[in-house]
C-alpha cells in the first residue's frame, strides 16, 4: 500500500508541472506587451515598469517560468491589480463560500441521484426506470444558469419564499444562510445527481446479477435486505469515488450559479477578474482549481483502494 501511495503521488508530479506550464502559458495569449495589457486601461508607466520588472519580461520565457513557479511554490500566486491584494488571500477569502455551496450541492446530488439510481436498477425496464432515466437526461440537458433563473422566477419573484440573491454567513444567521443557498445548491446538484444516478444504476445492475446476491436471495433474505445490505454497499464504492471526480463539474457550475445568485464565492471571483482584466487572479484561480482537482482525484483513488480490498495494488 505504501509503495502504491508513493507511486501514485509521484505520478501526479509531471501532471502538476504540465498544469503550471499550461497556466503560465495563458499569459502568452495576451495580444501585445503583457505588462501594458496587465497595467489596465490607465497604462500608468510606473505600473508598466513595475510589472515588467516583477514579471521579468526582459528575460527569456523559460527563465520567466522558473521565476513564476518559484513564487507559486512559496505560495505567491501574484497580486490582484484591481483589488491591490495578493491572489492567495483573495482565494482563501472566497473559498469557504464556494466550499459550503459545493458541499450542500453534493448532499442534494447524493440524496436525489443515489435513490433514483437504485430504483431505476431494481425496477429495470418499468415505468420507474424510464422516469428516472428521463429525470437524469433532464438534469444533463438543463443549463444550470437557466434553471437558476427559473427557480428565482418561481420561488422568489412569484411566491416570495426564498431570497433571489445574496449570501449570509452561517455564523451570522444559519437560517438565512440555508435560505440563500438552497436554490443555488439545488441548481448545482441537479446535473451531478443525473451523473450519480447513471453511475448508481449501472453499478447496481452489475451487482444485482452477481453470484453472492443470488446466494443471499436463495438463503431467503427479504428483497429489501438483499438490496440495501448486500447490493448497495458494494455498488456504492465506485459511485462515491466517481462522485469525487465530479468536482470539476461542481466548480465549473459554481462559476455560473454564483453569477446568477450573486454569491460572493470563488466562481464570482474569476468572472469579476475576467471583466476587470485582472489576469493574475484568473491564473491563480485556474491553478488552484486544477491542483485541487488533481489532489482530490488522488484521494479518490486511494479511497477506492482502501475501501475495496478486492483491488490488488499492482
Amino acid at each position, binding site marked *: 500500500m505504501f509503495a502504491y501511495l508513493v507511486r501514485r503521488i509521484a505520478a501526479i508530479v509531471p501532471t502538476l508541472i504540465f498544469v503550471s506550464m499550461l*497556466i503560465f502559458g*495563458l499569459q502568452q495569449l495576451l495580444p501585445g506587451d503583457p505588462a501594458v495589457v496587465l497595467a489596465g486601461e490607465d497604462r500608468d508607466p510606473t505600473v508598466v515598469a513595475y510589472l515588467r520588472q516583477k514579471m521579468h519580461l526582459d528575460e527569456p520565457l523559460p527563465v520567466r517560468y522558473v521565476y513564476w513557479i518559484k513564487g507559486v511554490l512559496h505560495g505567491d500566486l501574484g497580486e490582484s491589480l484591481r483589488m491591490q491584494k495578493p491572489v492567495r488571500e483573495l482565494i482563501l477569502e472566497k473559498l469557504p463560500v464556494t466550499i459550503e455551496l459545493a458541499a450542500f450541492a453534493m448532499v442534494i446530488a447524493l440524496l436525489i441521484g443515489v435513490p433514483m439510481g437504485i430504483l431505476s436498477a431494481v425496477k429495470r425496464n418499468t415505468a420507474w426506470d424510464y422516469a428516472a432515466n428521463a429525470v437524469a*437526461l433532464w438534469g444533463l440537458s438543463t*443549463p444550470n444558469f437557466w434553471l437558476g433563473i427559473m427557480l428565482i422566477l418561481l420561488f422568489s*419573484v412569484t411566491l416570495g419564499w426564498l431570497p433571489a440573491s445574496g449570501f449570509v454567513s452561517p455564523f451570522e444567521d444559519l437560517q438565512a444562510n440555508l435560505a440563500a443557498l438552497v436554490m443555488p445548491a439545488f441548481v448545482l446538484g441537479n446535473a451531478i445527481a443525473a451523473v450519480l444516478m447513471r453511475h448508481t444504476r449501472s453499478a447496481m445492475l452489475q451487482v444485482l446479477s452477481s453470484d453472492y446476491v443470488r446466494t443471499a436471495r436463495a438463503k431467503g433474505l427479504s428483497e429489501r435486505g438483499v438490496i440495501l445490505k448486500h447490493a448497495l454497499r458494494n455498488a456504492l464504492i465506485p459511485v462515491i469515488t466517481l462522485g469525487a471526480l465530479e468536482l*470539476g463539474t461542481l466548480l465549473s457550475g459554481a462559476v455560473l450559479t454564483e453569477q446568477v445568485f450573486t454569491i460572493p464565492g470563488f466562481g464570482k471571483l474569476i468572472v469579476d477578474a475576467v471583466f476587470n482584466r485582472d489576469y493574475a487572479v484568473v491564473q491563480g484561480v485556474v491553478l488552484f482549481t486544477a491542483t485541487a482537482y488533481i489532489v482530490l482525484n488522488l484521494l479518490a483513488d486511494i479511497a477506492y483502494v482502501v475501501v475495496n480490498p478486492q483491488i490488488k495494488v499492482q
Partner: protein
Amino acid sequence: MPPREDALPAPLDTPRVSPRSHAFRRLLRRSGAALGVVVIAIVVTVAILAPVVAPYDPLATSWSAIRKAPSAAHWFGTDEIGRDVLSRVIWGARASLLAGVVAALISLSIGVPIGLLAGYAGGKTDMLISRLTDAVLACPFLILAIALAAFLGPSLTNAMIAIGVSATPVFIRLTRGQTLAIKAEDFVLAARAIGNPPWRIALVHVLPNVVPALIVQATLAIAAAVIAEASLSFLGLGQQPPAPSWGSMLNTAKNYMDNAPWMAIWPGLSIFVLVLSFNLVGDGLRDALDPRHT
C-alpha cells in the same frame, strides 16, 4: 489466393445492408433518438432559413414595444429595447449550432491525430501526450474555457476556440484508448506483417474502427459545446451584443424577471431542447453502434 468478396454471389433473399445503414436504422428505431434527430433537423432548418422565417429584424428596436408580453404580433414578447424575442431566438440558433459544431470539429481535428499518435506510437510519445492530456483535463472544462476566452478576448470565434481546445483531451483519451485496443487485433498485425508503413496502418486500418466511438462522443460534445457557448455568452465572453445569442439573451433577461419573465423563458427553453436532442441522439448512437451497450 482466396476469392474476392465481391466475386461471391450474394444470397438471393437477403438484402445487402451496410453496417452504417443498419446502425442508422437501429438509431431511428429508438423513439428518443428519432425525436432528437427530428428536432435537430428542425432547428438546423430554422437557423438556415432565419432571414426568411424570423418575423422581425432581430436587431430592430422599437421604443413603443418595450417589454411587451407575448401577443399575436410578438409570439414570444419583446425585450428591454423592444426587439422581437422570437426573431432573436431564431437568429440565436445560428450562434448555438455554429458554436456546437465548430467547437466539436476543433476538438476532433486536434484530438484525433494526437490520440492516434499516442496510441499507435506508444512509449515516450504516449507518456508525454498522456501527461499533457491529464494536465488539461485537470482544469475544469468551463473554468479553462473562461480563462482561454478571457485571455483571447471576448467574441464568438474565441469562445468556439476556447470550448474546442478545452474539450480536446476527451477526444485524445478516447482515440488513444480505442487505438490501443484495435492495434492488438489480428487484422492490424496482419497489415503490419505484409509491410504496410505505420502511418498507413494508423489511417487505413485503425482510424475507421475508431470512428463509431468518435461519432458518439462528437454528438455529446456538440451538446456540451452548446451549453458552454451559452454559458460563456451568459457571462459576456461569447457572442457580443447586439448580435443575438441564447446565452447573452438570458444574461439580459435576468435583470427583468419581475416584469418580463418571457425574456428568460424562451432562450433557455431553446438551449434545453437543443441540448436534450443532441444528448438523445448521442445516447441512441451509442446503443446503435455498440450492441453490447443497453
